[in-house]
């Protein structure tokens, strides 16, 4: 992975609301190598989209970056003027938005929307833009006939692939995808993910793939970042996070999707609900739901991500969890019916 494409350092961002400031991204740090595929997972409202918007400098009017930096190839996006960011956005770094398949303009054909995207940033002839549009559609397995189609004439999966083609048309080096497949059926979802994977290998861009569906991410990501209530609580190589989660929240998430082919066992998910970001609980934000929590967990500042070695980081000060105390949590109840 060699050089670093993106380095996020202590980034905080959020929204000014009538009730106070919602710090949706709170002191988040991670780095992304060239060509690397990073999966970011976490529950609804934990700040995934806000993180993506902050990096792209597309935060809404009531939102702002409070502190920290986002170094894109060494230059701090957070400190750039609007004009400087414009020079990078869509050309060097692009984003596919959550529910993007409804984001296409209904009155313009697919071809017009693709060529408009080219003309907005490059001075090329119409023929060149059209050729590029056809080439990009072919990349996502859509026949050039479809250049004349309108969005409503395409299925959800095709619209989503058009959005991916549009994000890639200027050959960005970083692609951020915010839940690009969530509303789609598994088969369509899988074919889109395989497409992204193939394009990444061919074109060499880096990917940040955001979703709440961890089971999907484990298979496709090089690295995984797990967010909870605005904070990154665990980060590391995807396979290792899956096989040996260190943060109790990650462990809970891994216990939240049943296995398709492995042994069938009772899984418990996580009790309780996510905290309100207007007044997050003191100490570790996961403490109220954590089966390993100690009184010390609920005091002071939230624990920071600390290295565990091997490129892994966790924000739980007890990296071996209950074992540190010599006490494992109660074993989950055996499933009923004796069918195991």
């Amino acid at each position: 992975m060699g050089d670093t494409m993106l380095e996020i350092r202590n980034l905080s961002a959020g929204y000014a609301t009538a009730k106070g400031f919602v710090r949706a991204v709170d002191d988040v740090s991670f780095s992304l190598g060239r060509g690397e595929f990073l999966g970011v997972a976490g529950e609804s409202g934990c700040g995934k989209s806000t993180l993506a918007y902050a990096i792209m400098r597309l935060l809404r009017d009531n939102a702002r970056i409070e502190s920290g930096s986002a170094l894109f190839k060494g230059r701090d996006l957070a400190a750039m003027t609007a004009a400087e960011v414009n020079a990078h956005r869509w050309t060097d770094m692009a984003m596919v938005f959550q529910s993007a398949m409804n984001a296409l303009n209904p009155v313009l054909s697919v071809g017009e929307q693709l060529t408009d995207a080219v003309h907005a940033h490059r001075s090329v002839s119409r023929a060149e833009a059209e050729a590029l549009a056809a080439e990009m559609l072919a990349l996502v397995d859509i026949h050039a006939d479809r250049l004349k189609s309108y969005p409503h004439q395409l299925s959800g999966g095709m619209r989503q692939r058009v959005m991916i083609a549009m994000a890639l048309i200027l050959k960005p080096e970083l692609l951020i995808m915010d839940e690009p497949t969530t509303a789609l059926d598994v088969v369509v979802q899988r074919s889109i993910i395989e497409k992204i994977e193939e394009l990444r290998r061919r074109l060499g861009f880096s990917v940040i793939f955001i979703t709440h569906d961890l089971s999907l991410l484990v298979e496709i990501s090089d690295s995984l970042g797990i967010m909870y209530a605005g904070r990154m609580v665990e980060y590391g190589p995807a396979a290792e996070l899956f096989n040996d989660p260190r943060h109790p929240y990650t462990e809970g998430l891994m216990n939240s999707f049943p296995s398709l082919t492995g042994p069938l066992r009772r899984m418990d998910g996580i009790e309780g609900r996510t905290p309100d970001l207007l007044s997050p609980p003191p100490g570790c934000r996961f403490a109220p739901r954590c089966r390993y929590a100690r009184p010390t967990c609920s005091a002071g500042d939230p624990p920071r991500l600390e290295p565990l070695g091997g490129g892994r980081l966790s924000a739980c000060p007890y990296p071996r969890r209950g074992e540190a105390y010599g006490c494992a949590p109660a074993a989950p109840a055996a499933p009923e019916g004796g069918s195991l």
Partner: protein
Amino acid sequence: MSAGLIPATNAAPERAPALELRSVVKHFPLRSLAAYGKAVHAMDDVSLTLEAGGSLALVGESGSGKTTTASVIARLYERDSGELIVAGLPARPFRGRAESLAYKKRVQLIFQDPFGSLNPTHTIRSILERPFLIHGLADGKADLEARLSDALEQVGLSPASEYLRRFPHELSGGQRQRVNIARTFAVEPSIVLADEPTSMLDVSIRMGVMNMMLDLKERKGVSYLYITHDLAGARYMCGSIAVMYAGMIMEMGPTDEVIRDAVHPYVRLLKSASPSPEAGLVRTPLDAGGEIPSLIDPPPGCRFHPRCPYAEPRCRESVPGLADLGGGRRVRCVLALR
């Protein structure tokens, strides 16, 4: 090992199945002039059996006809043709409100959306009271009170008094879905049709709701038809499975067997597309492109043939029948006939 945390059959063999569909058809006529005479073929030749005390998962992609099937069973819509048999008795047109009420008490539907299905202007108390009052299930005020508490505690919402006075917006999604489930079980149904009951919930709390449904089933002995698009969730919940594609059931049988060695190419496709992190990180690419066909002009023959890597000329000519492979396994594909 049988699939599902519930044994596939814990019913005495002589009991009639809780529910049977035989060759049920349901089309929705299109109303526009341009489409005069056309219809959405939402269910065609759908046959399935839910054993008494059993649990059957109905799986399939969006628009394949799962909700229509549940609605036909709940008799929100009447089927166009075919038989619906509940506890051995064929369904016939309702004669009067009492009959339809009795049916609705017995066959309960849980909807996908815990946000839309609870009236936002009513307290949890008035939402939960309704079924007891409508079906005359409570014996006086004290009994009603006890039943309300019991209903909420069964779904893990306690102390009940704390929840009874709240409004739906004062509950989390998971809590709302629990209220929904409490309301369903309040009338002591014998069949529960659960239409994607956890798909709108945050991932971390889905298992809690699923486990609670499994526990309730064990305690109350109801039969479940559990609708989902998640194959792994189907396996966790149900001993048997039926996979729908474009309005037809393509394969059914014991869940573990169907997942382990699916015969129908669509079911194999579904399996290879389903997330399965424990199976290793390197996967073979899918070998069928395309998306679910139009149900207004469904493809002739096997509805999967336009996407099927194994399609033969005869697949385009006539709809394959459901071949019986024994052991409860049935497959609608020419491959199964060889």
